[in-house]
Every structure is written in C-alpha cells, then in structure tokens.
C-alpha cells in the first residue's frame, strides 16, 4: 500500500461555478487560496476532499474526489451526484460564496509507478470523475528518464485508455476525457451509447490491453475488475468508498478488511480515508 500524503489542510474556498452535467450529476469549480499552493502541488489523483455543509444540522464533511485540479487557475473541480441533503446543499451554493473544505485526504494513485505503461482507467458511474485527474496526470507523461517535458507522440510512453461506464446516455465528462487520454471507450448499461454493458464488457469487446488497471465505481464492478486483473496477471488499483466521519484517520469509521494485517491498525482493517481510498485490488477483501 502507498504512503500517506502529507498535504492536509482545512480552508475556505470560493465557489466559482456550478453546473448540471446530466441528470443529477453536478460539477462545481472551487478556487482555493494561494496559501494552499504547496498542498495542491503535493496532491495526487485519487485523493479527495471533505466538503462541509453550512447547515448546522449536518456536521460531517462530504467526501468528494478530486475530479480536476488546475494549479494555474487555483481551481479544484468536483463532480458529484446529489443523493441527499448535503450534496444538494453543495450544488445550491451560489457562485462567489465560501465553503469550508478539508483536504487533501487519502493516498491517491501512485502515478510515477505507472509511467511508461499501458494504463487503463475504468470508471463506473460516480467512479468516472476521479479518473479524470488521473488521466490528466498520466497523459502526455514520458517514462522517467526520457528527459522530455512535452514529449512528441513517438516518445510518449504512458498510454492512457479510459473506459467509462454509464447507466445510460446522456454521458458526462466524455469530452474532458477525450482531451486527456489516448483513447476513450464508453459502456452504457442500457446500450444507449458505446458497448452495452459494463466497463469490462467494453474492455473485452474492444480488446483493450493493459499493463495496469485503475478503477473506481460500484463494488460489484470493483470485484469484477479485481478478478479480471488476477486472470490477466496484471496489477489493479481500486478506489473504495465507505461512510466517513473524520476523513483523517482518527475515528476508524471507514475501514475495509484487508488480506494481511494492516501496519497501522494491527488488525486486518485498513482505513479507507488514510491508507486508501486507493488499494491494490489483491490486498483488500471486498
């Protein structure tokens, strides 16, 4: 498992813009204060933030993954489904208002270890947004040692393929992925676009080859990805969710069963908010 990041903060951010992407899926862009530049430089795809509702009856932070981080603009993009009062409140926050954010939480994906490989990103439903930052940080990167900041197509070593699974059209974030991945494939449960079925159906149908899998989505999908990776003999990194209270590892609310004794807890439980949310699929019991 990966080392815990050291880029935590709690700070007010400004709501720049919120828009409805599809159905009940919203995108909110936040601007973070300059002081957070160091923490944001350390940020990794797969990390998440805790967004605090303002309503005094809702006291716990809402965990939302980084969808996109643009340090040049000091913006953090969150894409989320309004499933309850907290996310609805976030979607309704007017542009210009301030929101308290706890971040950067979790370990995130170790992108360096993936450089120069064929990385296939599998996002299902609300597992799609976190894959965007991952795609963006992998895409256009040469293998370490190539010495090229912006490598030409020939020198580009990391191949990023995004496979996005939706319930049904209309799709969201597809264009964003097209700008950040070598190839983008779509699966929809109802067959309204792309492969009819889930992301693995698309992988099989399109014969997509991978050296590494990165996946985020519902549990059944993650289990299928784990099994597929084992079958293929390749590593898979999966991003897990659990109800959280603190988000920083203090309450032990958010554990996942692990194959081996977890070095922090000394039992077979790892904290998703701290040792995760990204785990090697082979090391967790899901």
């Amino acid at each position: 498992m990966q080392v815990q990041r050291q880029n935590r903060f709690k700070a007010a951010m400004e709501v720049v813009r919120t828009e409805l992407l599809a159905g009940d899926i919203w995108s909110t862009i936040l601007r973070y204060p300059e002081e957070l530049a160091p923490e944001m430089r350390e940020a990794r795809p797969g990390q998440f933030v805790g967004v605090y509702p303002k309503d005094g009856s809702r006291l716990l932070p809402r965990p939302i993954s980084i969808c996109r981080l643009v340090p040049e603009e000091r913006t953090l993009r969150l894409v989320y489904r309004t499933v309850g009062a907290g996310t609805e409140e976030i979607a309704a926050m007017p542009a210009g208002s301030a929101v308290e954010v706890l971040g950067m939480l979790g370990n995130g994906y170790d992108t360096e270890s993936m450089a120069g490989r064929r990385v296939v990103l599998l996002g299902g439903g609300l597992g799609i947004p976190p894959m965007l930052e991952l795609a963006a940080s992998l895409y256009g990167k040469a293998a370490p040692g190539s010495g090229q900041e912006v490598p030409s197509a020939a020198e580009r070593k990391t191949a990023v393929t995004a496979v996005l699974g939706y319930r049904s059209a209309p799709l969201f974030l597809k264009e964003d992925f097209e700008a950040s991945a070598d190839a983008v494939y779509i699966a929809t449960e109802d067959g309204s676009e792309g492969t009819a079925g889930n992301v693995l159906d698309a992988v099989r149908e399109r014969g997509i080859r991978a050296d590494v899998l990165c996946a985020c989505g519902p549990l059944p999908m993650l289990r299928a990805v784990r099994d597929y990776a084992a079958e293929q003999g390749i590593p898979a990194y999966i991003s897990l969710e659990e109800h959280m209270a603190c988000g920083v590892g203090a309450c032990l609310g958010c554990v996942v069963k692990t194959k081996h004794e977890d070095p922090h807890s000394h039992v077979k439980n790892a904290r998703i908010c701290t040792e995760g949310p990204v785990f090697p699929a082979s090391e967790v019991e899901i």
Partner: protein
Amino acid sequence: MTGMEVEIAGVRLKNPVMTASGTFGAGQEYGEFVDLNRLGAVVTKGVSNVPWEGNPVPRVTETPSGMLNAIGLQNPGVEVFCERDLPFLARYDTRVIVNVCGHSEQDYLEVVERLAGESAVSMLEINVSCPNVSRGAIAFGQDPDCLCAITSKIRRAAAQPIIMKLTPNVTDIAEMARAAEAGGADAVSLINTITGMKIDIERQRFVLANRTGGLSGPAIRPVAVRMVWQAARAVKIPVIGMGGIATGEDAVEFLLAGASAVAVGMMNFHEPRTTENVIGGIEAYLRRHGIENVKDIVGAVQDQVF
C-alpha cells in the same frame, strides 16, 4: 492572565480541555491541525489487552446535529499502544489519559497493569460504557453494584488515578456516579454516547452494520449537561463533562453545571481545530466576565431570579 489550570485527582492540567476518547485517535492525525501542546490532555481511543477488530462497516452515519458510531473499539492493543503511540504523545507538553476497554474484568486489569509502569500516562479513563461491544461490557456501566465492584478492582490494580466513564443509558446517573465513587474512582467522566439507530428507508435496512450505534454531538448536549449537573451534585470527586461541545461557550455550560474539565468529541470531525477554539473561547469568556480563574465557575450555575 486568566488562570486556566485545573487539577483532577492530583494531576495538573494546563487547561480544562481534553479530547474525547475515540475521536482523536492517539493524537497523531489531528496533530496536523492542532498544536497538541495547547491541550489540557489527550485522551486516547480505547485500548484493550489485545488488538480488537471492531465492528463491520458501515460504522458511522450522520444524524441531525449529531452522528451515530459503532466502531466497536477497534484498536491495536496495549503493546502497540505503548511502543508506538505513547512515545509519540510523550513528546508533547500535554497530559496523556489512556482510555481502557475490555470485555471482561480480566481484560481491563491486564491493560491497567501493563500501563502501571508507563510514566507518560497521567490517568486512566475506564470505559465501562461502550454500547458497541456485544460481550456484556455494557452491564458494568449500567448496574451500580457491578460498577462499584469493577471500579474497586481496577483501583487496586492501577498505578495512575482512574476516571470511570459513565454511560448515559441509565435510569439514574447520580446513582451510577455514586457507585463509581464508592468503588474508589478518582473522577468520573460523562457522557458516553446514547444508544441510537438509523434505518435506510429506501433499502429497508439498518444503516449501521451493528444495527445500533452511539449518538454524539450537539444533539445530545442538553442531556449531557443535565447528567453532568446531576453527577456533580451526587459526588465529591471531580466530574469531566462531554457531549456535543463545539465552542468555548458550550464548554462553559458544562463547567457551570459542575464539570472540572471538559472533552471535545464529535465536533473534531466538523472542525479539526475545535479543541483549540474551545480553549480560546473559555479564556475569552473568563476575560469578558472578569473571572480570574476557571475553577471559579465550576458548578456556579444558579436558579433564575425574578
């Protein structure tokens, strides 16, 4: 300068603000947000004789102005605690209070004995009130005779002062406080969480895998203040108050009700700097009212005058 120092069972705390057990890990996690040197004491997550796995997930869920938890006292056991967590805490200029949990009398005694030689541990808080362990530990905290008996056994085994942590899930909290005092407790702390439940109506299932969980947060503050007041009137030993403290003003409410010190629990999750804010808030209150010493407001609440 307002006097913020308090003394519990002979142990001096630089101020009356502690962390509530189970909400602050062993200090490390919130150490990134709070200067631990500022705190009166750090109270650790419950520590048992051997590592505990705790309950299945989901373990936590939000409720109106509060939350439910059913962690089930997951912890790495007293050995790891002493080797890893205690040295970390010992580096800070704050008191360390170890919360002790167990399934049986023997469990408690093993932990207490293991900690006897640890000079970095200032006090022990004995959790006889966790509603989330299924092997009967709750009975210790819900029956006055059991509570008195286990208190006196632990008292004999312990090298440090012991704080008995009381559950609010009882008919008569004063009776329980008196039972702890009779058993030789050096202090009592309260309240632990109130047993509650949430149901996911769309899935028609319990939200928590454990079905029930412990309710904490501002929602329960009025119950906590009442019980602290009742306990403080019932016993002579110091009372440590907790339950929904979010601000210095909330802490003052507990002090006025009779608490000699207070702990901040769930609200750490809402604002990681709550403990420091509470300290600042108490100081501001004392200054505003021209009160020299925080001890002067302990139990100072009075009846309405008309």
